[in-house]
């Protein structure tokens, strides 16, 4: 059965947005990670769709790398690091912006990014991938940023950063149809190292303050 390409693109962008909303609505670390994992799987799938349509093997490689690093390695790493932390510190109990309000704001951010992209890029002769995925990637970027600034938990900041990165990856892939594989590998290695460093910081933070609350970082300690 021949499935039209545009419908596959639409479905995958809807799935990406739904998974991003999953990160916004969940309160616990396990929930964020599973939403992120799901998002990465969908991202790898949409990269593979672009690869299939353009026929470039480099994008296939990028898709497989995305799947391995983002859907398997990074979540495992984060789970391993936070194993020793008590469960009550892994829950966003008291965010700056309530969960309900941040959901509505995220919906408005999706609207904003679609509006921005359609205002600025509609004349710029883009192909169907760019037109479908660019607004999605911009909304991933916005929502990731919003999650980072509106939550107290350090774990949530890491997840927000990862969402932003997913958005940027989608942006480049959709717009350029594959920067060279070396650069992709470099970016992925960068992320991996970034997550490792932030995991290290998280571990130190949980040992020093016994919590992941960002507010505890603001007070000076005299010892």
């Amino acid at each position, binding site marked *: 059965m021949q499935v039209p390409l545009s*419908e596959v693109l*639409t479905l995958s962008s809807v799935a990406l947005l739904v998974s991003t*909303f999953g990160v916004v609505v969940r309160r616990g670390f396990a929930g964020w990670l599973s939403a992120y994992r799901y998002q990465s799987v969908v991202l790898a799938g949409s990269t593979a769709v672009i690869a299939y349509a353009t026929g470039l093997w480099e994008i296939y490689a990028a898709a497989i790398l995305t799947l391995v690093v983002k859907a398997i390695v990074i979540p495992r790493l984060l789970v391993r690091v936070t194993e020793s932390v008590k469960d009550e510190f892994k829950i966003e109990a008291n965010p700056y912006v309530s*969960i*309900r309000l941040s959901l509505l704001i995220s*919906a408005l951010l999706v609207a904003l990014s679609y509006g921005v992209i359609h205002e600025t890029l509609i004349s710029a002769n883009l192909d169907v991938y760019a037109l479908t995925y660019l607004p999605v990637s911009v909304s991933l970027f916005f929502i990731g940023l919003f999650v980072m600034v509106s939550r107290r938990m350090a774990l949530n900041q890491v997840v927000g950063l990862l969402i932003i990165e997913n958005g940027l990856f989608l942006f480049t892939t959709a717009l350029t149809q594959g920067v060279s594989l070396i650069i992709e590998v470099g970016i992925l290695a960068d992320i991996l190292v970034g997550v490792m460093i932030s995991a290290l910081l998280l571990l130190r933070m949980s040992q020093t303050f016994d919590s992941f609350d960002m507010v505890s970082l603001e007070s000076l300690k005299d010892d």
Partner: protein
Amino acid sequence: MTLFTTGADSLKVVAIGALQVVAVFAFAPLLTGIMRKVKARTQKRIGASVFQPYYEISKLWSKDEVVSDYSSWVFRSAPWVVALATITAALFIPVFVPFSPFSAAGDVLLVIGLLALARFFTMLAGIDAASAFGGIGTSREMMISSLVEPGLFLTIFVVSLTLGGTDLTSLVGAAARSGVVIAPSMLFGLISFFIIILAETGRLPFDNPATHLELTMVHEAMVLEYSGRSLALIEWSQSTKQLVLLALLANLFLPLGMPTSIDVGLLPLGLGALAVLAKVALISVLVAYVETRVAKWRLFRVPDLLTVAIASAMVGMIFFYL
């Protein structure tokens, strides 16, 4: 209905419409039975037969009623108002065939109004007997229903914008003509409509339909005082509401197998009705699975889920206007 010019045709259409309504009432308790059975099996219980709701209703129907001395006419009339409002709402909804008998007289907004009327009288009856449980159930139901409303209306806007119009017969016809649409607005609409149906029909995680524990019940608390024939009426209308809402979900969002209009002949209509039955049964199995998977949420977390529905419908609107 200008499609039908000859008298014999219009007579046939009326007959089909009437048959559809009768079928809705006949199958509604069966759906409840299927849900209970699936839920029992997924919890490693055997469960009662799928026909158990019929036995319960027929037994309740012949039993005596107990009515509190302190209750007013509201308490006694509420089950009949609820049942009549639900029946009238069912007459407006194309359930098994893409046609509803009253479609010329009102659209989807009227259906929502009728269901709201039924709910309003259930709530009144809950307070009328002045038992503490009735009050608790009513206040919870008020909270949930006032939060369901914006999501429901946004979803209806999404559906009517995408398919055109608010008339249910033409909406279902349009959905059937467009086949399986992968329109992003409809996908987001489907998500929010599913959550809203869970809230409207009082399933988990909003309300546990199987509980009589005072801290958790919502709908059960309101109808706790009822017995006999009144209870039978209320349970039957609850099942009917569930069936028509699930059928609406199937017909609007998953229109596979639905004939595009009523005058395609009896065989395609019958096949379409069977397809609707199969789809509704599948959706109810899904709902029962969801019920087994999740626990009832704390009452003050319920708005979170309803906000998901609202946000999802909002994104659906955004996608429509692109």
